[in-house]
């Protein structure tokens, strides 16, 4: 009896403690902006955002900013639930397919006119203006540059007498030589089904964006010669032992460690990992190429994904309050204007999404300067297919590509799988 009584007391005490929950205080004239981020720990995982926020707050004493963040998949689940219950944060980081679905459902603010009014479009990189649009209206600002391709280990290439490949035939012969030397050619992990960025670029070289309207309307099936050719190239790579033998059980993070430890020659990744690459032992031996061009491709072959990744959106509810909307746009002006851009490039050494005129020390930041060079080279920029598809079709496309890499699907089956997913939505 005594024990039960003490349990009861503990319970009641806990409840009493909990009942005194937090209450939001709003003093006069001050605006509080809430931001929903896609990392759990802003300071270590998105240092540029943390620095930009503190810089902005120092200059704008009338504004408060509250950031809450979760790991990306948890974050997206939360935001879906929040949208449905009208409790979205004011500024929300979203992947593009979800941003577009939310915009279409009326949860997000149409910021087209505000972007003009605050001159934000002028400071963005030319390829990143209008990066997330629905019916020609802007709903998102780029949070990062999606610039994807193959990183490679220059020392290994030199030792084997290889040079950066451009055509698919060159690519395959490079793979053959690496495999013959007993090294894993491409480190890749199927458990992160999204880690097929360079393969998405390859798909754009088979006319993906030209075909998209017809695919959407149903005039064209995914099972068409060009897409089959694309998947056949993936199958050819597989047959030439291009991929890690444990591709099926590995994820992106493991593949990255394998590449950085010098146990694989090539790694499919993007600009977001520049900092990790520069911190690795092979920072000074890293090259980058956009991925192969194809003789049976469609349209311009020298095209590469140089686009926006996830985007920052404004919730429709927040935009109804003019003073809050003004504070948000001032924050974005700071983020994408000179001060924010400088912080990103010079303090966190990442690729800014806005125009940057400073100089990067090449010896200190070899990978970053290499990426800036490639960003400004003569390859035309294109978008990411995933961002133009629904979440379901996009994920099915990932699965289809890995299905061929894993040897589960034939090229025709891979096309059919995506076609079936897309047919659900027509």
């Amino acid at each position: 009896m005594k024990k039960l009584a003490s349990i009861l007391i503990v319970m009641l005490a806990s409840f009493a403690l909990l009942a005194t929950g937090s209450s939001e205080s709003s003093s006069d004239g001050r605006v509080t902006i809430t931001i929903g981020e896609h990392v759990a720990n802003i300071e270590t995982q998105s240092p540029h955002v943390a620095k930009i926020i503190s810089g902005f707050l120092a200059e704008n004493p009338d504004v408060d900013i509250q950031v809450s963040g979760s790991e990306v998949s948890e974050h997206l689940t939360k935001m879906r639930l929040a949208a449905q219950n009208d409790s979205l944060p004011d500024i929300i980081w979203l992947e593009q397919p979800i941003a577009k679905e939310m915009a279409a459902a009326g949860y997000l603010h149409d910021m087209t006119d505000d972007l003009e009014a605050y001159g934000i479009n002028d400071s963005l990189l030319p390829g990143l203006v209008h990066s997330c649009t629905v019916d020609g209206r802007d709903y998102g600002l780029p949070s990062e540059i999606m610039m994807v391709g193959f990183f490679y280990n220059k020392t290994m290439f030199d030792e084997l007498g290889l040079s950066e490949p451009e055509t698919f035939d060159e690519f395959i012969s490079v793979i053959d030589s690496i495999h013959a030397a007993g090294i894993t050619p491409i480190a890749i992990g199927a458990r992160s089904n999204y880690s097929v960025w360079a393969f998405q670029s390859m798909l754009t070289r088979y006319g993906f964006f030209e075909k998209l309207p017809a695919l959407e309307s149903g005039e064209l099936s995914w099972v068409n010669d060009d897409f089959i050719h694309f998947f056949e190239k993936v199958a050819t790579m597989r047959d030439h032992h291009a991929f890690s033998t444990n591709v099926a059980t590995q994820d992106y993070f493991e593949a990255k460690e394998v590449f950085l430890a010098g146990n694989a020659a090539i790694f499919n990744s993007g600009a977001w990992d520049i900092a990790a690459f520069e911190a690795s032992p092979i920072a000074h031996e890293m090259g980058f190429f956009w991925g192969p061009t194809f003789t049976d491709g469609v349209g311009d072959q020298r095209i590469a994904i140089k686009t926006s990744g996830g985007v920052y959106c404004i919730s429709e509810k927040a935009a109804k309050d003019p003073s809050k909307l003004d504070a948000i746009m001032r924050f974005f002006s700071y983020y994408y204007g000179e001060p924010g851009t400088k912080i990103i490039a010079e303090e966190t050494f990442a690729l800014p999404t806005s125009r940057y005129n400073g100089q990067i020390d090449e010896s200190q930041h070899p990978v970053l300067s290499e990426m800036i060079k490639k960003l400004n080279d003569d390859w035309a920029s294109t978008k990411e297919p995933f961002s133009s598809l629904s979440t379901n079709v996009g994920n099915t496309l990932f699965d289809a590509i890995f299905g061929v890499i894993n040897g589960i699907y034939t090229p025709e089956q891979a096309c059919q799988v995506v076609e079936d997913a897309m047919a659900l939505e027509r």
Partner: protein
Amino acid sequence: MNQLRCPSRTKIILLAPTMIMYIVFLVMPLFIAVRYSFTDFSGIGKAVFSGADNYMKLAEDRLFLVSLKNTMIIMGLSGVGLLVGSFIVALVLNEDFPGNTLSKAMIFAPYVIAPIIVGLIWGFILNPEYGLINSVLRKLGLESLCIEWIGGTKWTPVAVSMVFFWQLLGFHATIFLAGIKTIPGDLYEAASIDGCSRSRSVFLITIPLLKETIIMNVILIITGVFKIYELVVQLTGGGPNHLSDTLVSYMYYVVFTSSRYGYGMAIAVFILVISMCVSFFYLRISRNRGKEAAA
């Protein structure tokens, strides 16, 4: 069986708190989920009623059928294994020996290890290339026994069963142990005086008196297998290409990765119904058998 009388006011006071909590936070949410299983809801925007469409699709969804098959394989392998294994472990741990508490804690440890670590460690153990098991087999010259434990299309459910067994052994053994502790010690004394060996007294005393505990564990194993999720996600991610998905891991993919909430809820309702039917069916036959034995 129930024979204590008391005023209905007392009964209401005893039952009400549980019923209210259960209905508000479990039954009501369940109804909401069931309602969505009849819509094409994507998780964002409006839900449009689509009749039994989602349920019709189940029968044609190849990946769903694969995940159902995998779940059944795991049920067959780890279900029986866990029941027998955890009972034996409980009998062993019931004895007094030095290091007993440490043993118990270590056997229980897998149950509380974070799923992400389970995936990582067992990935290293089961990896077909450089994993511990296959390395040992190769060293022993048993190359032919090397199996593509994970990552292949065939053996993954077996690997999942193994890890599931490892993870839940301590959990079910603890429940058995609690049951064994309720058996009065003098029953065994009397048996040993009558010349009954210890192994025989297990069959004559322990098992018959543990009827309810066995029922509990079986129900927990059945419903537990139908809920396997994190283990699969961390071990194989459902791969290659969803061929090692279980029902819940496939449902999770459909709901949260593909944004097909309505369809995912149809899968969830299916899981719920089948798991409930199997459990209730088992309860019914075990209770009936009990009645016959008593008669």
